[in-house]
């Protein structure tokens, strides 16, 4: 903030003040890292005790008469037998399917799941042909999850890494408390999406509900449609060429680039007038708080 006086800061808009203080969300300062999942980099993502699985070895589990616990136990048993591709049939809205998978795995869910689907995962590539309920992918660490239909609220809550993709629309509070990774939504998202977001990127091709990015610390939200309203301390920033390149690359990966490209996306970042993780000097903090 060298060269900017207190008086000048006071005369600036919130956004100008943030820029003058050298804070933008492109600076992912702090100790957390943004890591994209690379299925070939198994030495970085595979736990030493994880069973060795073969993606070409495929099996199916008919979940119709099974409890969620039985299904999840069966997934682990199949991984221990070396199966690297597992298909779940007839899930019919069961909760907590595929949670806690800490290994590379192709998991295909043929149907729809209930709450907390594929939460707490670290590594698998998941495809869901149907819809998912609340809190899908909560706390996921790495891997990819692609949902073909809609998703419920708190989609990707507290996600730390990986790609969580919904090709339809999602409920409210998407990416609440997200700490990394990427959330992509093909349709609309509800109110309070990105609430208290700390790291990572969220892309919504459609509209966003009210209070978008409320109290976000950091991270970036891209919205392709209309924003009903921004939350406290969320501000619009310039969409740079770097942003466009990243958006194009990421959306191409999932076949979700809108007609006309990504130039119309709005970029939302933290105004950083609330709490933030940057190492500011006490007098600087006083200026912006």
């Amino acid at each position, binding site marked *: 903030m060298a060269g900017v006086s207190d008086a000048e800061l006071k005369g600036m808009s919130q956004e100008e003040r943030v820029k003058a203080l050298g804070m933008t969300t492109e600076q992912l300062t702090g100790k957390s890292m943004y890591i994209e999942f690379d299925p070939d980099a198994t030495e970085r993502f595979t736990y030493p005790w994880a069973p060795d699985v073969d993606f070409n070895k495929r099996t199916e589990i008919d979940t119709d008469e099974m409890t969620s616990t039985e299904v999840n136990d069966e997934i682990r048993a199949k991984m221990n037998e070396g199966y690297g591709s597992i298909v779940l049939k*007839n899930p*019919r*809205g*069961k*909760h907590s399917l595929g949670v806690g998978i800490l290994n590379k795995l192709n998991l295909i869910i043929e*149907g*729809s*799941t*209930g*709450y907390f689907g594929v939460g707490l995962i670290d590594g698998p590539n998941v495809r869901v*042909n*149907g*819809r998912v*309920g*609340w809190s899908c992918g909560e706390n996921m660490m790495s891997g990819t999850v692609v949902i073909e*239909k*809609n998703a*419920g*609220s708190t989609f990707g809550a507290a996600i730390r890494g990986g790609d969580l993709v919904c090709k*339809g*629309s*999602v*409920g*409210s*509070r998407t990416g609440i408390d997200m700490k990394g990774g990427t959330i992509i939504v093909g349709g609309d998202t*509800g*109110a*309070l999406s990105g609430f208290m977001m700390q790291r990572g990127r969220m892309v919504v091709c459609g509209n966003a*509900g*009210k209070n978008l990015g409320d109290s976000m610390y950091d991270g970036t939200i891209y919205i392709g449609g209309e924003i009903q309203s921004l939350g406290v301390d969320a501000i619009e920033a310039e969409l740079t060429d770097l942003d466009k390149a990243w958006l194009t690359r990421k959306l191409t990966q999932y076949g979700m680039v809108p007609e006309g490209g990504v130039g119309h996306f709005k970029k939302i970042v933290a105004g950083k007038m609330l709490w933030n993780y940057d190492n500011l000097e006490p007098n600087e903090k006083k200026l912006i708080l």
Partner: protein
Amino acid sequence: MCGIAGLIHRGKSSNVGGEMTAMLQALKHRGPDSTGYAVYGPRSDDYVMRVKVAEAEDMAKGRGITQVLADRIAAVDAVLAEHGATVKSKEAVTAYSLRYVIGHDGNTGDMAEHIEETDGVEILSMGNGLELIKDLGDASVVADLYGLNDFTGTHGIGHTRMATESDVDIKSAHPYWAFPYNDVSVVHNGQITNYWIMRREMERKGHRFMSNCDSELLAVYVAHNLSKGVSLEDTLRQSIEEIDGVFTYLVATKDQLGMAKDTMAAKPLVLYESDDLIAMASEEVAIRAILPQEIDTYDPYDEEVRVWQA
């Protein structure tokens, strides 16, 4: 936590009793304390009155309760006669719960108020198509007890209750009838934070409350607005402005089913909509209980209001 569910068939009747039982049983984990139904059968010129003359737990109070119940039922019969109602059938479904079919040409509201002047008597519902049933236990227990598995109708709403702010008893169970507004019922999942302010307001306007359950307020609120000529859709929209808290609730009338979600969208609802059936529930697993095939569902957003016609 509580679970709510509803369905409405467009232009036809179905086994809504069995369908609601399947949905509510799938939501048992959201609330095992009590289960309730408001199902709508063929409309008739006669009124169906469901009345409770004691709580289930009262039955363990010794032999004296038998005479108490007999006295209360006699009091109900006396009021019906006094108001010129013709009792066409009277069935004691349980020792404490009765189903009357009555013919009546006068003001059923006045009669209902008079019936409830007897201590321990509560009318669970009155209407030309509505049958409101609620009792302790899960959906299969209640459905078996009240013979709901073969109930034919056009629509219904239901509730599985986890008691958080009032007792485990029938009077605190859902659905609530919008007393004294015939054929209107409400189920709710959530907490209403301006309950006492709104309750006092409604009481000042002459409405009665039978429990301390905040969900009852919604039934009273809906009854008040409908009695003033406000449409169901406008009532639901207005409620989002006036009622504070986190809630999703369903309202059924003789030929409509509506839903409203609070401003925070903090309580879940999953919707399935087709040309001939609309089904909704707190969790998708309940919808899958009646529609196992692959279907498209979605979550309504904050402040969303929908009303469907049977």
